[in-house]
């Protein structure tokens, strides 16, 4: 896209070398945010704080101080991550005073991933739109409007990190942070034609990510190229002693991994994923991506993940249960919206606030989650879903005994039209069938653009992502494979 941001590594090198100022880069990025406001990618543009940070960075460079790996790089942050100097709303009225993003909650700290961005001298450009509390697959379920897909504004950008994906795809910023609970980085990356990585569960700190489903939530990067995504992953990955689920594992050399040889790797294709009613153009794109991996020297083999069909039901029980528990903290007392009923005490205060503050999809999931955790149903649903989760995880353990990675489509369809699935929550859930199993197993997975769909009479060419999945902590292998797909797709 013309006028788009250059690559993150290029910007950082230019700023460190004094060829461009961080203020100039920030001004250009802010102008792009204004120009593309109609996409609805951002809920908040951090104009003043971004320029102030850029100006401090330029002063430090002038004083001869060394600058970080993301020096002067504009980064968009999903609005489920806490930022100390910008409102944090999760696209929900309940985290605002009066229903507008500008009156959103001001967290008393930065999310750990955001703090690491700032420590690397990145510039936080703004907060990206999402489905309310990250519950959705289309970025239409937020309180402040939908995000449009830059490839076709009548279509969704996917979700829930649709704002982050659209911001990168439209060139507002070269990098964005998103979160992925059941596909919320990979699916919007696929729909908008960018790279999106869901790291191993625990690889990136969740501290300061407003919790949706704590046993599944992962923070991860979105970028225009595999190398830029690797650069951002390298900044945010690593142990955080203040997140009890953070893995004490050394982060890899992710940028170097992008140039690593992939010849000889065995890549498995789960046959069950091809039986899920893929749109023919998506399947054709996927087969071309496999052929590219084959030409790069990978051996493509058939594998079976027989419990795949359980993933949607398992996920929606577990995620809803965890969400109903996590969202209990939103009660009109400590932050955000408070609706005071005329009488009825504290229970009435909670109910009045939550009824006004939450949107329809969040209420649906809170009720489902409350029900599956309630007396008499816990064993029948929640405990059973946890048992089914074991089967899904064991499928991958068996598969990875004979293959190094798994390749699959991200979504059975390309970006669908805005509004198309809003009246049918179950069909929206079923669209996540191919991204849920790696989430339930805690595995690293990513989406890298493969060949777009061919244009037809009423549909332009639409981006399609190829999903790659690896064993725990093998992000470097994923990046090497994704870079091979990217090289083959770039003429």
């Amino acid at each position, binding site marked *: 896209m013309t006028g788009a941001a250059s690559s993150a590594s290029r910007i950082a090198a230019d700023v460190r070398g004094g060829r461009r100022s961080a203020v100039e880069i920030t001004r250009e990025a802010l102008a792009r945010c204004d120009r593309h406001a109609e996409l609805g990618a951002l809920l908040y543009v951090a104009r003043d704080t971004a320029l102030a940070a850029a100006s401090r960075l330029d002063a430090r460079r002038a004083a001869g101080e060394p600058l970080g790996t993301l020096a002067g790089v504009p980064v968009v942050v999903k609005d489920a991550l806490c930022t100390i100097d910008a409102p944090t709303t999760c696209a929900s009225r309940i985290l605002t*005073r009066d229903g507008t993003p500008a009156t959103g909650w*001001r967290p*008393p700290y930065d999310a750990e991933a955001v703090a690491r961005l700032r420590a690397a001298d990145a510039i936080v450009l703004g907060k990206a739109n999402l489905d309310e509390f990250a519950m959705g697959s289309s970025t239409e379920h937020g309180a402040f409007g939908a995000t449009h897909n830059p490839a076709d504004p009548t279509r969704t950008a996917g979700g829930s990190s649709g704002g982050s994906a659209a911001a990168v795809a439209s060139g507002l910023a070269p990098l964005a942070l998103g979160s992925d609970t059941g596909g919320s980085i990979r699916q919007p990356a696929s729909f908008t034609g960018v790279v999106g990585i869901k790291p191993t*569960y*625990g690889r990136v700190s969740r501290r300061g990510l407003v919790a949706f489903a704590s046993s*599944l939530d992962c923070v991860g990067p979105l970028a225009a190229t595999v190398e830029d995504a690797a650069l951002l992953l390298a900044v945010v990955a690593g*142990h955080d*002693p203040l997140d*009890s689920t953070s*893995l004490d*594992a050394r982060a890899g050399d992710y940028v170097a991994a992008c140039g690593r040889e992939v010849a000889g790797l065995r890549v498995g294709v789960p046959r069950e994923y091809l039986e899920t009613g893929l749109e023919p153009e998506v399947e054709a794109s996927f087969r071309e991506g496999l052929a590219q991996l084959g030409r790069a020297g990978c051996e493509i083999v058939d594998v079976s993940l027989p419990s795949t*069909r*359980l993933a*949607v*039901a398992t996920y*929606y*029980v577990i995620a809803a249960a965890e969400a*109903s528990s996590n969202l209990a903290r939103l009660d009109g*007392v*400590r*932050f955000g919206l408070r609706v005071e009923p005329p009488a*009825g*005490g*504290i*229970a*009435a*205060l*909670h*109910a*009045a606030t*939550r*009824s006004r503050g939450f949107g*329809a999809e969040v*209420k*649906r999931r*809170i*009720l489902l989650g*409350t*029900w599956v955790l*309630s007396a008499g*149903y816990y064993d*029948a*649903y929640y*405990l*059973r879903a*946890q*048992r*089914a*989760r*074991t*089967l899904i*995880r064991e499928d991958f353990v068996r598969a990875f005994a004979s293959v190094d990675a798994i390749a699959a489509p991200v979504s059975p369809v390309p970006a669908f039209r805005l509004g198309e699935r809003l009246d049918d*929550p*179950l069909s929206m*859930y079923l669209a996540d069938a191919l991204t849920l199993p790696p989430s*339930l*197993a*805690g595995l690293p997975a990513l989406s890298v653009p493969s060949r777009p769909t061919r244009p037809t009479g009423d549909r332009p060419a639409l981006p399609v992502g190829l999903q790659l999945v690896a064993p*725990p*902590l093998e992000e470097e292998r994923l990046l090497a494979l994704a870079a091979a797909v990217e090289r083959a797709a770039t003429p």
Partner: protein
Amino acid sequence: MSLDRETVARVARLARIELSDSELEGLVRDLERIVAYVDEIGALPLEAVPPTAHAPGATLPLRPDAPLPCLDREVALAEAPRQAESAFAVPEFVTE
């Protein structure tokens, strides 16, 4: 298992969410379909399978059992929609 109107209304009370009649009707319809779908895991023989509560990985280290500073009172209260006497204000819920 099907979810009737009364059950959804009871669960909504547990979750501290008030629903209008039309919201309740819509939710009964949606949740019936969703629960019918998730019932497929209810039909499987899973008793012998151990549950997974958490994505497994390396063992999670504990940090040293040492006190760390916590938020200052003013900071913690800064975003409270109502406060009284340097505390979060709530309607009276304990009576003598």
